[in-house]
């Protein structure tokens, strides 16, 4: 029974600030773990973890406007993002669209944006959206840094966050709107496939486009060729369908026990088409 006891844990700390969290983490030499929402960490806690370092009380829970976009603290719960006024308007309402479909209310009360970013499960919803939105993460470890999430996921990010705190997620401003689509087995499932798309229009033509598909079964990635096919075109249902066909033709998908690659290939195009149609509707095209 996984839920009874975190077997190896000997100590629990409330870090007072980022520096203390980092120095405690360093002192455990790999046998310590940062704890925020705990949803992923405690579901399958490694037996060699001896020290838990709680970082929920160091001022990293906030959602605020920042240079036209949003800055969301690493330990902000999904519920509190959903409840924040700043998040409501962002990206045409993409965060509500997304987060209402992530897990269930009691887990959203626990799970944090930083946690979702760091866990980065391939079937997860949030990584797909962060990649589509061009999010950046500000982190602090021995050094400090700021890196696009998309770039982060192409590198050995798990190692980084064993020694660093995800301080803040920065979502850039977009003149346009996004939409999120997902298919699960039930209303509260992880994704069998998900897609996050956004578009902006200038002078009747698509000025920018973002298309990301996740749970393929690999983690969400952008499809630059699909974005290129959109930019400069006039938004229309026909265009969305052309992109649907293109996605079905070119996307890289695979099998897992939840769905086959063949199903994913066909449905990926459908989800992209639907997300584009809804995003363009929200953007007032």
């Amino acid at each position: 029974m996984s839920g009874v006891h975190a077997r190896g844990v000997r100590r629990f700390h409330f870090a007072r600030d980022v520096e203390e969290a980092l120095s405690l983490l360093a002192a455990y030499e790999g046998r310590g773990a940062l704890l925020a929402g705990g949803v992923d960490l405690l579901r399958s806690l490694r037996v060699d973890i001896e020290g838990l370092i709680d970082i929920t009380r160091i001022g990293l829970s906030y959602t605020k406007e920042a240079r036209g976009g949003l800055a969301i603290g690493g330990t902000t719960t999904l519920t509190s993002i959903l409840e924040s006024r700043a998040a409501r308007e962002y990206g045409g309402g993409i965060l509500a669209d997304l987060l209402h479909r992530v897990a269930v209310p009691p887990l959203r009360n626990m799970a944090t944006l930083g946690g979702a970013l760091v866990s980065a499960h391939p079937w997860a919803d949030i990584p797909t959206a962060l990649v589509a939105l061009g999010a950046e993460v500000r982190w602090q470890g021995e050094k400090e840094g700021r890196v696009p999430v998309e770039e982060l996921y192409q590198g050995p990010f798990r190692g980084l966050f064993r020694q660093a705190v995800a301080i803040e997620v920065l979502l850039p401003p977009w003149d346009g709107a996004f939409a999120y689509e997902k298919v699960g087995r039930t209303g509260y499932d992880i994704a069998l496939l998900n897609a996050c798309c956004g578009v902006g229009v200038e002078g009747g033509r698509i000025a920018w486009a973002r298309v990301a598909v996740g749970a393929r079964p690999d983690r969400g990635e952008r499809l630059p060729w699909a974005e290129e096919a959109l930019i400069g075109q006039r938004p229309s249902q026909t265009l969305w369908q052309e992109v649907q066909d293109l996605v079905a033709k070119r996307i890289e998908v695979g099998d897992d026990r939840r769905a086959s690659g063949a199903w994913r290939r066909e449905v990926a195009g459908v989800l992209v088409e639907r997300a584009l149609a809804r995003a363009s509707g929200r953007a007032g095209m």
Partner: protein
Amino acid sequence: MKLLFELNGVPQYLDVEPGERLLRLLRRLGMKSVKEGCGTGDCGACTVLVDGRAVRSCLMVAPQVQGRRVLTLEGLGSVDDPHPLQQAFLDAGAVQCGFCTPGMILVAYELLQGNDDPSPEDVRKAIAGNLCRCTGYVKIADAVLLAARWKQEGKWR
């Protein structure tokens, strides 16, 4: 380690193992309404409120509630003096086996704290993380809506 928190309105100051799950601590303290249905956060039977928010006590370690207020079903009402939500669950026929009931009532309580007039859709969304295998959720949703009506009518204490 020493843990200080409030359980159903009563301060608790006690020694805990740092790795002890909140679920186990609460049951050890006699709060047997907190049920273990899966141990992985998926079923919702162990739901409790921490500072008014529904959480999974199986996915928390005890020290996380340091300085917090924890509410379990025992803190809501009793056999002789049930909370209106508990009464609504009885009246609507929302209880079959009763194993999911504590968690269900607590997520409904959280919903109704912030929303006096939930739609059936709001109710469905609020209880979506709590699995019930007996009722098909039909009478559970009825119960939550009934309790909401009572609340609007000022019948909550």
